[in-house]
């Protein structure tokens, strides 16, 4: 047992109960269907802008690119144009590969000590696979949801729906009947991937050690979102047209609460609202942050061009020569060695005068 994920799990359960009871017992459809979604959206937008603008003010004094290839130098040395880009075109390509296919994560290795003293690096691909499945599935699900926010539904969205429901899964038993409406692959992949990403944090001991409540909470929340969504589509079906009436009302600023929408729908919307409001203050901001990765988004031309620290200012210096000029006489008096003797006094004549005084 670990307080960090128990607390996160409890938080999501409490959120579920809050929305369910709020709608079912207290009849707060307006709160959970209109007010909270709008507030959450505003929080998301302002928080997101604030975080990005805050990051944009960060100083980037040096090129701190990490490379995975040969830097461009002499013409007869082949340089790696994507993994060590010297042009902005190369940087764009590297960023696209990073954002869409998580190449840095693909390079993830696991260190192991084998046969006593041998250190070996293994390719650790499952996190990359899980993350890729999760993010792409989430994106597809999100994109498909445009059908609730547009009327008529654009052809692109219909196309994605058709591709997503390509496999006609039919599962008919006495308890659960799945088949119509068509099974969307993305929803199930999302559920499986988020489960994997959670179990990984539970069962891999060193990952568990570094996992915090802020890692578990979004996972539980996204699981809740995906689960309620899948539930509404395949099991505890809701009146889709009524649900769309609500969402269309939100998106055209003429909010309505249609009758006969199941509380599960409000739970789903509440979970999404919480995720949106929580987003700018959490690790989920890597959505915007990945574009600002300083090790990825800069050209590696540290040899070709001189990069001067942009906030270098003229420093007032006091050289040793100036110092000696200022304190020469005092230094001689104290018997300290000086680089240059005073110009006026002549040491040859001065010595006998001094000896006379002593006499």
């Amino acid at each position, binding site marked *: 047992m670990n307080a960090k994920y128990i607390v996160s799990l409890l938080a999501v359960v409490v959120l579920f109960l809050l929305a369910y009871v709020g709608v079912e017992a207290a009849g707060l459809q307006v709160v959970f269907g209109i007010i909270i979604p709008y507030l959450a959206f505003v929080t998301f*937008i302002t928080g*997101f*802008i604030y975080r*990005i*603008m805050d*990051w*944009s003010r960060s100083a*980037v004094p040096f090129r701190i690119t990490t490379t995975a290839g040969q830097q461009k130098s002499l013409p007869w040395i082949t340089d790696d144009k994507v993994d060590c880009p010297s042009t902005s075109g190369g940087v764009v390509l590297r960023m696209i590969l990073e954002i869409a296919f998580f190449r840095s994560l693909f390079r993830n290795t696991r260190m192991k000590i084998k046969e006593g003293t041998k250190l070996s690096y293994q390719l650790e691909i499952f996190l990359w696979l899980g993350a890729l499945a999760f993010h792409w599935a989430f994106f597809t699900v999100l994109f498909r949801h*445009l*059908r609730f*926010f*547009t*009327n*008529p*539904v654009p052809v692109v*969205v*219909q196309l994605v*729906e*058709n591709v997503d429901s390509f496999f006609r899964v*039919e599962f*008919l038993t006495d308890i659960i*009947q799945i*088949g*119509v*409406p068509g099974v969307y692959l993305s929803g199930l992949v999302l559920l499986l991937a988020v489960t994997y990403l959670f179990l990984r944090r539970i069962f891999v001991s060193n990952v568990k050690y570094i996992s915090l409540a802020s890692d578990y909470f979004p996972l539980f929340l996204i699981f809740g979102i995906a689960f309620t969504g899948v539930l509404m589509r395949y099991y505890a*079906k*809701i*009146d*889709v*047209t*009524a649900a*769309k*009436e609500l969402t*269309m*009302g939100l*998106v*055209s*600023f*003429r909010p*309505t609460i*249609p009758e*006969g929408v199941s509380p599960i729908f409000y739970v789903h919307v509440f979970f999404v609202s919480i995720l949106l409001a929580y987003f700018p203050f959490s690790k989920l901001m890597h959505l*915007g942050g990945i*574009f*600002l990765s300083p090790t990825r988004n800069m050209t590696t031309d540290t040899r070709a061009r001189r990069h001067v620290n*942009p906030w270098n200012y003229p420093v007032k210096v006091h050289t040793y020569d100036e110092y000696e000029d200022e304190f020469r006489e005092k230094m001689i008096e104290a018997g300290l060695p000086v680089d240059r003797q005073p110009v006026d006094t002549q040491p040859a004549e001065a010595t006998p005068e001094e000896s006379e005084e002593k006499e």
Partner: protein
Amino acid sequence: MKDKKIIIAGLLIFLIILFSPFLYNIFVNAGSAQPAPELVLTEKAKAAKECVRSTDYMTAEHMRVLDLWRHSVVRNAERIYVNSKGKEFTMSLSNTCLDCHSNKAEFCDRCHNYASVRPYCWDCHIDNPKEKE
């Protein structure tokens, strides 16, 4: 710094994407947020008062009913459906469902289009003789 311009441009693109459903409904397709289409019942459907199951159940679960009907007719050759009130129905989309709901364009298609649902029922049951305009 010169990066700031790029960051702000990226942020603007993100915001436009985020607001695209709002913009779509305000500028591109103004007035498209009409309420969900009303179900139009034929005289025969009105007279029958209730479908094979309650109206609430049918709005949400009619596809499951049809799927089960198809399964039981095609796989098990059982054509009679008995509902909770003991009333018997022949399991047939063309002959039972569309007998009352003979107005497919108004009864089925409008909601399906609204919710972007493209059921493959009509792949086979396309030339429905009972459909009336």
